[in-house]
């Protein structure tokens, strides 16, 4: 086997968090990228993007080739480790699910780890921790962000929408009940909103079928939003670019759909534009009472 050729790793400071934006954050989910970076700045957390990261393969890889579904996340994880990043934030729920799921399977199955290393042509010790948008924000809140939320949004009623990728799958929501997760609740309350009980917190929105089976996405997204409406919600809070696009774009006009990072950014006093709220299909700026510049 030829030794892996990768660029010399830039070493990170001790407090650096590796950042794996994932492909949609450069396109359809640009507001997730903007709001995560802005929130990290406010909290004084240093995000360092993994140099030369690749796509995790998303739904397509595990639909068509199970080796690829492991080898692609493997390369991204191996790069992070080689670059001295002990923690990797993957704000996109789909990327998080692929990276974390792969990490768990590699840890459980040495044969798989060996095969993945061969396929990817890279070594990997498994010394990386993968963090979701919920884990990241809860961590920031515990480390002092909670005390700096000077512009809370009282009176707003929110429903937390975990969908599939933040609730189900091995190692995905450590210790939580997959049928009734609660990782978003504390953060939503810290932003000053109330959290309403509803029935669709972990239902599927149709995921990656937005283009190839649009009618199913319209169906499922519509059902999610009707239940949110019936529960009396003013907004839906998400952590997944596919959920966001399926609710905000495919069902435009129904209800504001905010990423958890956007909501916390507003509560931290950041402007809607700095967080990307002006880029939604369904106007989300209406959640700031009285409007904000």
């Amino acid at each position, binding site marked *: 086997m030829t030794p892996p*050729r*990768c*660029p010399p790793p830039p070493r990170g400071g001790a407090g650096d968090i590796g950042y794996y934006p994932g*492909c*949609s954050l*450069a*396109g*359809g*989910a*640009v507001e997730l990228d903007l709001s995560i970076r802005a929130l990290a700045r406010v909290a004084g957390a240093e995000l360092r993007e993994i140099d*030369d*990261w*690749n*796509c995790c*393969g*998303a*739904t*397509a*890889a*595990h*639909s*068509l*080739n*199970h*080796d*690829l579904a492991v*080898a*692609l996340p493997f*390369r991204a994880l191996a790069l992070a480790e080689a670059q001295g990043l002990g923690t990797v934030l993957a704000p996109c729920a789909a990327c998080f699910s692929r990276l974390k799921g792969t990490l768990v399977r590699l840890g459980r199955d040495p044969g798989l780890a060996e095969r993945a290393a*061969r*396929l*990817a*042509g890279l070594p990997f010790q498994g010394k990386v921790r993968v963090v979701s948008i919920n884990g990241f924000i809860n961590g920031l809140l515990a480390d002092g962000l909670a005390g700096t939320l000077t512009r809370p949004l009282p009176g707003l009623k929110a429903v937390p929408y975990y969908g*599939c990728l933040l609730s*189900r*799958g091995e190692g995905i929501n450590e210790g939580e009940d*997959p*049928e009734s997760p609660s990782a978003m609740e504390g953060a939503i309350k810290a932003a000053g909103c109330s959290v309403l009980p509803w029935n669709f917190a972990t*239902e*599927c929105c*149709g*995921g*990656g*079928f937005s*283009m*190839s*089976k*649009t009618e*199913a996405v319209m169906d*499922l997204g519509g059902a999610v939003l009707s239940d949110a409406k019936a529960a009396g919600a003013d907004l839906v809070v998400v952590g997944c670019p596919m959920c966001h696009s399926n609710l905000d*774009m495919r069902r435009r006009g129904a209800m504001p759909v905010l990423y958890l990072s956007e909501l916390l950014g507003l509560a931290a006093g950041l402007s809607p534009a700095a967080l990307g709220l*002006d*880029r*939604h*299909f369904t106007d989300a700026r209406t959640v700031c009472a009285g409007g904000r510049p």
Partner: protein
Amino acid sequence: MSQGPDADLADAVRDAAGVRVERCYQCGKCTAGCPMARHMDLAPNQIMRLAQTGDPGDREALLRSLAIWCCAGCLTCTQRCPRELDPAAVIDALRELSRREGKVSPRGRRILAFHEAFLASVEHTGRMSEVPLVGLYKLWSGDIFQDLAVAPAMLARGKLPLIPHVIKGRTEIRRIFEACRAKEKA
């Protein structure tokens, strides 16, 4: 791993997905929670049943079904199965077999075209970019007019970068794809 057309399907699924389909006792819980069941020609529990029988006709029905392409991979079935089986992984394995044997349901071809376009974009640049993905999808699915109206709105919101990002390690990525394809054929 022998996964030729004559190999027993339950064995092939066990090898590829690590699931013993014979353990399924047909309670139907997977189907009850499946968000895509109403779009499927075979419900998830029927998929499990047909994978148990060893009957060549059942094997054929599975590999030619629309259902295996309709699965959204939401893992509700896997989460809830009282036998701790993983129907979602079974379906992943069936999809690979169906494609390898050229048995993809005509009604599943748009979904396959989307996955293939996605992976082609990743293979050539290291990342998924919306413009090549959508372009290839339209070409391969014949679904030319899909979402034409959305593109300008995406552009205006900075959600449609026109120049795809190309990573430095794209030769590595291509090598990974080739290695994974070789495995696929083995």
